């Protein structure tokens, strides 16, 4: 039953990744745009993963910030750095942090799950703001352009290097999340949404199933955060602020939570609107995104990827 549904969406994903690889070769300013889309898509992949279990985290920016500050702290206290090293640091620290926070939050569901996540993220945000001596407070920490495997780059080359690193990670993450969602554990995560009681009566710990999903989503958040810090060459407490968490949830709903590709479709839409609306309509890009979200919720509750499914079904029904 899945074959007919996944196939066109897999093609859409392949097209998207190809466009991300090729389009910036023609328009240089797109290199950073696409790198950001891919990096945020990776973070939102984590949100989409939790949506499978019916849970929405309003605090996932904490892992995003963890990944970003892992790179920033290395630059500030050790100096130098390498993209791969930063990614390892960001991935490991957000995984550990995700495990610690996860042990608490997986005991709760729905609004309590969402709010407890938000509370944890605000604690982190406050620490980043207040511990000025280590974090430079609201100014944040500059992330100097790192090398890659010992190579150093000019700014012009570097924007392509980070684009292709982001692309490679996005593809791996997209594929791995798909595999995970198709695996028994992924199906159990989805099963939690409709019947946690039955899961327990099959001998599984629902909390453990959710914890595994949560830690994976924290890892994705951390990796995305490291990439964004490298792309924007800065990490600020804003990275961990609740509006940032809201942005990720927004993108997930925009793209659609039913499939991993929704994360990238949503991120592409979001960043493009911001990129162009910010250029042409100064302060009203939020207004445009707000209207887009209202339209999505009213007319396409399954997000952008749901639109295609709906259209496909209508066409099938017509025959």
């Amino acid at each position, binding site marked *: *039953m899945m074959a007919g549904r996944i196939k066109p969406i897999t093609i859409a994903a392949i097209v998207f990744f190809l466009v991300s690889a090729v389009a910036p070769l023609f328009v240089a300013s797109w290199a950073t745009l696409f790198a950001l889309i891919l990096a945020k898509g990776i973070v939102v992949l984590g949100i989409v993963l939790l949506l499978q279990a019916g849970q929405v985290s309003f605090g996932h920016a904490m892992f995003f910030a963890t990944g970003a500050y892992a790179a920033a702290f290395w630059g500030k206290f050790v100096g130098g750095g390498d993209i791969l090293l930063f990614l390892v640091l960001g991935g490991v620290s957000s995984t550990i942090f995700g495990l610690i926070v996860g042990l608490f939050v997986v005991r709760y569901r729905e609004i309590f799950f969402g709010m407890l996540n938000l509370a944890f993220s605000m604690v982190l945000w406050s620490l980043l703001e207040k511990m000025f001596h280590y974090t430079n407070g609201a100014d944040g920490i500059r992330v100097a352009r790192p090398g890659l495997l010992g190579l150093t780059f000019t700014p012009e080359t570097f924007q392509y290097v980070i684009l292709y690193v982001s692309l490679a990670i996005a593809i791996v993450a997209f594929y*791995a999340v798909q*595999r*995970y969602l*198709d*695996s*028994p*554990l*992924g*199906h*159990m995560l*989805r*099963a939690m*949404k*409709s*019947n946690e*009681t*039955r*899961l*327990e*009566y*099959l*001998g*599984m*710990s629902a909390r453990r199933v959710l914890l595994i999903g949560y830690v994976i989503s924290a890892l994705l958040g951390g990796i995305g955060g490291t990439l964004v810090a490298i792309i924007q060459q800065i990490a600020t407490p804003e990275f961990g602020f609740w509006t940032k968490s809201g942005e990720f949830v927004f993108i997930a709903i925009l793209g659609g939570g039913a499939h991993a590709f929704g994360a990238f479709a949503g991120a592409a839409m979001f960043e493009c609107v911001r990129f162009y609306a910010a250029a042409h309509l100064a302060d009203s890009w939020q207004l445009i995104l707000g209207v887009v979200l209202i339209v999505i919720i009213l007319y396409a509750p399954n997000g952008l990827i749901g639109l295609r499914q709906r259209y496909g079904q209508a066409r099938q029904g017509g025959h």
Partner: protein
Amino acid sequence: MANVLLSAKDIQIRFGGVIAADGINLDVLEGENLAIIGPNGAGKTTFLNISTGYLRPQAGTVTFLGQDITAQLPRTIVKLGIARAFQIPQLFLDQTVMENMLIAAASRRGHPSGLRALSHMPEAPEMERLLDLVGVKSYAKRTARELPEGQRKLVDIALALALKPKLLLMDEPTSGVASSEKLAIMDILTKALAEEKVTSVFVEHDMDMVERYANRVAVWNVGKIQKVGTPAEVLADPKVREQVIGI
């Protein structure tokens, strides 16, 4: 004499002023189909809830194959070999019937790690056979939400059987099913239980079902067991007829 599978000793539990179990003593014997009957509120479901770890009794012990399972977690008890089917079927409504079954098969393994696709699990033929056994194989690719109530009940039971339990506890397996379908469902069910060599305990309100399918009957009344015996003995007892069956 047959082995004792499950043994309840002096179980007591009360909810506020309501006594749901007041010194329940019962042995469930290997291979039998034991029916639990009694008026509403007599504590029948409470007994199932205690036996599956959902409720903790205030006094008394439950042992399964000699092991104390009182107040163990439901999932620990499931792993020991007690499965449960529900009065209201508990399915994963957004997934297909086959996916439901394979999730059960993966749970049975204990640690469903690895990234092998659920649909490629080696247990797939076994799960298909179970669906066939309870007569819902034709629904395998439908989402559980699309199934009519009777079929949901059967899938619910198939999910329990997928765990290869030694003992299956069922809460009103034919409630909510049209009376014309009850016999068919119970026929399928008893055949499946015999084939899988599963002992069963089932709560039932329909005396025709009890007479036809139970080897032994336990009569619950206000938190106590009033009588245990063969269906013929129990249903002939004038006290039981008056207080429990209401004739």
